[in-house]
């Protein structure tokens, strides 16, 4: 019951953002991390009093690790599949799964693990085939754990939490006051600084949204094209086995009209 009340309150707050949330309700502020978790099912904690730089760094690190893991795992799986289906021959010349340097970033959780945590938080989502509605076999294919759809759902679930956090920070001056309480500022400087900080949250929200959207697009292209690349390489290796036969066939075809043109008249 309590959670429902908070949700209703939060929704009303979102529906009327200009009504005046210069000071968010104390109880709402305290419950904010739980509300975000209930609404978004994200795994990171978003207390409004947490310093923005720390929360932001943690979020971006998590998303970065999710994508790094997805790129690597997806490629490995495809490479392995092609190798199994072609007894190893299909992988000749196929670009191997990229080795990730992880430059200075320590990733502790894999995408599959974060997905499990999200599901434990109540996430229910589904990936739907774009064609052949109701085809059981096709539905099975999109259950691939590192499909673009699945990865997209995981990162967007995390984004949902971060987005709400940014919204909260933009509309909550209490956390701003706590952060800068030790500084002696004039009222004018205080207003200017708070306005500047709000603008920065909005800027960060748009920047993070755009970065995520473009990376999802890239991952989708990568996942699809790597499969395509793997399949073309496997096909190339098959054709290579009969290269001389294909050459002979072409030679015969090309010579036939010249040598037997009269014979070819029906």
């Amino acid at each position, binding site marked *: 019951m309590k959670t429902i009340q908070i949700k209703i309150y939060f929704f009303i707050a*979102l529906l009327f953002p200009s009504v005046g949330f210069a000071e968010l309700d104390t109880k709402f502020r305290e419950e904010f991390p739980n509300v975000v978790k209930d609404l978004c099912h994200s795994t990171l904690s978003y207390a409004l009093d947490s310093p923005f730089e720390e929360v932001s760094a943690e979020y*971006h690190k998590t998303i*970065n690790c999710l994508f790094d893991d997805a790129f690597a795992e997806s490629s490995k799986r495809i490479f392995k599949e092609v190798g199994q289906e072609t007894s190893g021959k299909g992988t000749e010349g196929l670009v191997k799964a990229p080795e990730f340097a992880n430059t200075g970033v320590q990733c502790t959780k894999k995408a599959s693990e974060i997905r499990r945590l999200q599901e434990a938080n109540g996430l229910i*989502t589904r990936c*739907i085939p774009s064609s052949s509605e109701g085809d059981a076999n096709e539905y099975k294919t999109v259950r691939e754990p590192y499909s673009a*759809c699945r990865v997209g759902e995981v990162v967007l679930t995390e984004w949902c939490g971060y987005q709400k956090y940014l919204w909260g920070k933009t509309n909550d001056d209490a956390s701003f006051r706590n952060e800068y309480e030790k500084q002696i500022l004039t009222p004018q400087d205080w207003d200017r600084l708070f306005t500047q900080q709000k603008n920065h949250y909005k800027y960060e929200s748009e920047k993070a949204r755009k*970065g995520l959207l473009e990376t999802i*697009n890239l991952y989708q292209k990568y996942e*699809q094209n790597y499969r395509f690349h793997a399949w073309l390489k496997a096909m190339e290796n098959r054709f290579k086995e009969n290269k001389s036969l294909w050459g002979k066939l072409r030679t015969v075809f090309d010579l036939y009209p010249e040598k037997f043109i009269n014979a*070819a008249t029906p």
Partner: protein
Amino acid sequence: MKNKYLWMVAILFFPLGITYGAMEQYPQKLGDFSSFGGFDDVYMRIYQDANEESDVHVESQSKYESEILDRVGQHNLRKRSRASDDTYTQQEIEILSSLGVIDIHKDGADPTSSEEQVFISQILRGFYQYEQQLLQFQNDLARANGLRSIFENDSNADSPFDIIKDLRILDQLIFGEKYDSQKTKEPQFLVYNGEGALSMETEDWQDQRMEALQEKGGFEKKEYSNHTNSLTGTIAGIVLKPLTKLLSYSLVGGVSTKGMFEFSAHSGTSQDTSGAGGFTHALAPPDKTQTLSEKAQEEGIASGLNIAIEQLLESNCIETDARQERKKENGSDGTKEDPYLQQFNRVGLFIRCQDSRKADFLSDLQTIREKADFLAEKSHFEDILPRILNWNKDLKSYLTSAKEIHQIFKRDFIPKPQK
């Protein structure tokens, strides 16, 4: 921080004589996206690059600042040192006077007064913001199109593999030549005219051949089964079946994904990027007829940016026009801004909304959009898929031709048993 930029611009360009000439062509941005590199920390690199043009919070100088300033310089704001030449030209005086910027003739105002400094810095700030937004638009398009095409641009310089390169190898293996040169060497030996005779003239060998064979009878269009062990059936299966499977993997929209792209399509119409809009994602199930790819291309990238740039146009012109309307209605300025800001608005109107400049701007936008469309046309469905389908047709033609040749041999060269 905005003040920091403002003063930086003002210091760099002040004092100036201002003339209004033809705007130079904007530097080409599309197609410059060539060094994406590997895939480590891919998200961080894209995130850090996004919207950096308008980053006003960081203490360090934006990497785009000098480029924006260069573009401001392209507006032909002629730089002139007051120390060496402290008078306006007659033309400049006429322009400034006609705009009501400063009445030099009447009161002989000191052109280096602090009021004029403020005024000119405001003009420059307007130019700076204008160029900043346009550069962001161009960079967004360049990045989006670049990332979308790095696996399909016939180059391994920007990605570890490239589908077009893979296709070229297969072209060579199967047909003995590259796809590009096939049309000039089409075989012509099995095309029949309407009277049943061989035609050696047509260039459309493949299509007409199939039609001619069907007209002659006995060569019905065949639908090859993927389950048979025939060579034709196998090849048809090789080409089409994996494609169907491949496309089913990625082109699906999850619930959140659907919401994300819906959200982005409307984000350009609202300044509230972190508010209620984000909640739509949890409600509606995906539209099964619309794929994620279509969403991303048609709405997530293109529409969002188009809306943004249209808003830019509106904010630069229509709002000022509306202010003019208020002036007429109220008989007043309709604003409480200081006199120099009013002058700036009039100059802004002159600069941004006069017909020729607006036409130039729209022309630039059109060029950008056409290039974006051109790049989009090179995407998977419009470039690679038809090519694969053509392969399929070519392979079938090979095999049907072989059958035809076999029948001719059988009829004309193999002795028939004596009755």
